[in-house]
Structure formats: C-alpha cells, structure tokens
C-alpha cells in the first residue's frame, strides 16, 4: 500500500496521508483532464468531419494547457446579487464530491486510496454529494437559468441513483463483496473471468448469468452517464436552452473547477463500470510481468489496463454525446422510472434466483 510505504518512509502519518491524498490528483486527475478535454474536442471534431484544434502544437496537443493558462488569467466575475459564501463554496464542493470517489477506486492492486470494505457503497454515497453542490451553485447564482438547471439536476441525479444501486446490489449478490479491490481481484486471470461474462469459475451458473450481466452493465453505464450530466442526459447544463445551466454565472478558475470535476466524474464513473463488470485493473490476457518473472512490472501493467479501460469508457461517453440529441425532462424521467428501474429490478430478481440455485 502506498500509504504504509510513505508513512514508513517519512515517519509521519499525517504528512504521508496528505501526500497520499494528493497523489491521484496530481498523478492522475489533472493529466487525465488535460488529455480528456483535448480528446473530447478532437473526437467531437472528427465525428463532425472537422479537425478540431490544430494550431497550438502538433495537431493542437497543447491546446488544453493554453486554455488553462487563459482561465488562470481571467477575472473572477461575481454579480452583486449572488449569495457569496454559497457561490464560492459550490465549485470546491463539486470537486470534493468527485475527488472523494477516487479514494476508493483501485488503480492497481497496490495503489488504492483506502482499502474500504464498503468501497462501492461509499463511492455511490459521495457521488450524490454532487447534487448538493449543484443545487448550491444554482441557487446562489440568483439566476433563473442556473436555478432551473440545478432543479433539473437534482431530480435527475436522485432518480438515476436507483438503477445504479440496483445493479450494484445485483453484483453484490453474485460476488458477495462490496469492496472494489476484492471485486477486481476476483476477476483476475483472463477476460472470461470478468463479471460481464459471468464472473470467475466455470459452471452452469456462469453461462446463465452472462445475458443478465450484459443487461446490468448497460443499465449501470446509462445511469452513471446520467449521473455525470453528460449528453444525452445533460438537461442540467443544456447549452441551447439554459445557457450553461448551474454554472452560467461562474467564470475563471471557479468555472475551471466545475469543468475539472466533470472530467474527474467522467473518469470515476468509467472506472466504476470497468471495476464492476470489466475486471477493473486486471489485464484481459494475463500479465507480461508474471510471464517474465519480474513482479514489479505487474502494477504498472495494471495501471495501464485500468487507464485504458477508463479511457475507453470515457470515449464511449463522448461518442454517445456526439451521437444522441438531448432528452426532454419527461423523457429522462420515463427512461429512468419506466425502463431502467423495472429492468434493473427484474435483473436483480433473476440473478438472485440463479445465484440461490
């Protein structure tokens, strides 16, 4: 564990804890956000037969850095009528909400913020933290568009947590663990041990589980997509109707905070989907390190696979964004309450029966 190693190195648990807490931010979230923003722009551009940023660096690769420099220089505009304390806290709180989720995400078998036994429950808990900050931002902005966005967001996030949790409960009935580390550890070996293909072991139950696991994976992907407010579920920040939704009034670094939180959330959600159904940090083909007998290579391979899977799901999220139009608010609720929840419930019942049998 990184924390134990650091505390033995430094000899002070508090400093080690702080360093440990900053590691995913500086090693992972910031570089990821840099890459993901550029990726989003490039993917969207190429899907529309455009080129995207081309002029800063080779094919615009340092565009995001230029954007961040620009955001640093921006004036922090605050209108007179805003509720100042709430307005200032909201962006930080959003980021805390999405960052807290990273504490329980296993990047490799060695690198995990805390070995929580209730990892997945904890992640779902802190991710609903976002609702509070979004409502806070919307309310304190004193702007009708912000408030509308915030209200929509609250309704959406509260609704879509239900199918997510139902699918997670389904997985808990199959695996009997709520720790993401154990869950990932179970799916070791090859890709046929992944939960999407019925989990480890080779028996009849595994093959019977496969279709229900696929349904579960689709449901959890859709509902987590809705939880991070991405298109087609971006009614809270619908650009074309609500200006920018709950962060209309924000500028400069506070705006960047919301942006960073959004991308951190995208990755967190992708990481959860991959940890639940696609083996988390496990390699689909076994490890080169084990094959060659160099065990120190294994964590790096795991990090590679974890990042790759995460980026793949982030790509699918972007892909969906540039494919689907935005849902109306009533359609959003219809999808959740009339389709996802019944399917998730039926899935839970059937999987439960299969596991008991």
């Amino acid at each position, binding site marked *: 564990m990184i924390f134990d190693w650091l505390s033995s190195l430094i000899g002070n648990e508090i400093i080690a804890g702080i360093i440990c807490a900053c590691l995913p931010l500086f090693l992972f979230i910031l570089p990821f956000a840099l890459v993901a923003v550029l990726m989003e722009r490039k*993917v969207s*551009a*190429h*899907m*529309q*037969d*455009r*080129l995207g940023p*081309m002029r800063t660096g080779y094919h615009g690769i340092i565009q995001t850095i230029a954007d961040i420099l620009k955001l640093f220089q921006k004036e922090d505009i605050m209108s007179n009528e805003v509720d100042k304390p709430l307005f200032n806290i909201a962006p930080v709180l959003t980021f805390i909400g999405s960052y807290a989720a990273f504490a329980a995400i296993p990047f490799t078998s060695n690198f995990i913020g805390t070995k929580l036994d209730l990892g997945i429950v904890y992640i779902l808990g802190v991710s609903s933290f976002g609702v509070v900050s979004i409502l806070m931002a919307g309310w304190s902005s004193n702007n009708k568009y912000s408030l509308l966005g915030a209200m929509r967001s609250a309704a959406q996030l509260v609704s879509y947590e239900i199918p997510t949790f139902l699918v997670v409960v389904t997985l808990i009935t199959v695996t009997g663990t709520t720790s993401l580390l154990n869950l990932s550890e179970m799916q070791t070996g090859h890709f046929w041990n992944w939960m999407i293909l019925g989990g480890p072991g080779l028996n009849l139950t595994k093959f019977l589980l496969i279709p229900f696991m696929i349904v579960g994976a*689709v449901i959890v992907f859709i509902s987590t997509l809705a939880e991070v407010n991405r298109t087609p579920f971006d009614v809270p920040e619908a650009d074309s109707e609500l200006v920018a939704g709950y962060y209309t009034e924000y500028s400069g670094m506070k705006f960047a905070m919301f942006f960073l939180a959004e991308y951190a959330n995208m990755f967190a959600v992708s990481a959860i989907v991959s940890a639940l159904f696609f083996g988390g940090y496990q390699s689909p083909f076994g490890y080169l390190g084990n094959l060659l007998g160099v065990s120190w290579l294994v964590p790096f391979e795991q990090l590679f696979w974890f990042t790759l899977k995460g980026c793949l799901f982030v790509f699918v999220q972007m*892909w*969906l964004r*540039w*494919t*689907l139009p935005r849902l109306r608010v009533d359609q959003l609720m219809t999808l959740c309450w009339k*389709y996802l929840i019944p*399917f998730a419930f039926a899935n839970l019942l059937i999987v439960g029966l299969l596991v008991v049998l």
Partner: protein
Amino acid sequence: MIKQYFLNTWSGIWTVLVGMKITFKHLFTPSVTIQYPDVKVELPERSRNRLYVNMDDCIGCDQCARACPVSCIEIETVKSVPGDEVGKTSNGKKKALWVTKFNIDFAKCCCCQLCVFPCPTECIKMTSIYEFSEFERDNLLYNFATLTPAEVDEKKDSYAKLEAEKAAQKAAAAAEPKPVAAPAPEKPKEESSNN
C-alpha cells in the same frame, strides 16, 4: 402492451446503436476543414477583390471615377505643357495629362467592378488579393499616383505659367483690331500642344 414495452426498449437500444455506427464512420472520414491561412481556396474566375491601377497606362480620363457608385475613386489631373514627356500607353498612344492624384478608398469600395469596364486603356482591374484589412481606416486609402508632391507642384506651376501666357496672348489679341477671328486659331494650337 407488454409486447409494445419490450419493442420500445429494443428499438431504443437499436436506434442508439445505429446512430453510433454512423458517428463512428464519420470519425474516420477525412475532414472538410480548410486550414485557412496555410491553405487557401482557389478563387473563382472573375472574382472581384481589390483594385489595381497600372499608372503607366492611365491617361487620367476620369471615367472610372464617374462610373463608381460609391465615389471611392478620386482623380486629379493637370494638363501637360508643350515639351513635356508624359509617356505613352501600352497601346502606343501619347498621354496628355499628368495624373497628380489617383486615390482609391477601399473602405468605401464595394468591389462592383463598374470602374473596370469604362476604362479605355484597361489599366484599372481586379486582382485576387482579398487580405488587406487594416487597423486604421485611413490606411485603406490607396494612393496610386506616381508623381511626388514636388513634381505635382512643378507640373501645376508650369501649366499655370502656360495659362498665364495664353491669357496674355488673348489680352493682346483682344487689344488688336481682329477680335472675332482671334480665338479660332488658338484652339487647334492648344490641342496640338496637348497632344
């Protein structure tokens, strides 16, 4: 009812997959973007952009300025005096006027090309230059006249001298007993000197 529900679910998933297939295809189609300052679209034939005046051919006839609907061309000329070498146009005709001022204000110019057609020597014409924006509006006033201000003053002086001489002659002629016939020989003389 139940059947419709499952059909809805299926069509929902299926249509999303169809859409994703289309966008995925577009991910690999070559983009249509033209990287403007690096790559430029070839202008169509007869496109109208900035004007250019070939002052070697300009005879100062003022027809372009009169044709201009927005009065963006300003021409001033001075007649040459006998003995002046104004030069020849490219089709071999001798020029008669010093063009002391030929200004085109591209802030006003609407690129209608109406000035191009009346030009007898085809010296005013459209170029393919369209990138000539300026920070100051005054910089859009293009001066095509080739004479320096000193030269312009000199030409004006010499013409004024000629006029004065003529006026003196005229006065002398008027003083003489033949007042009616006097202006008649004057005119051809003036023309010949101009040519």
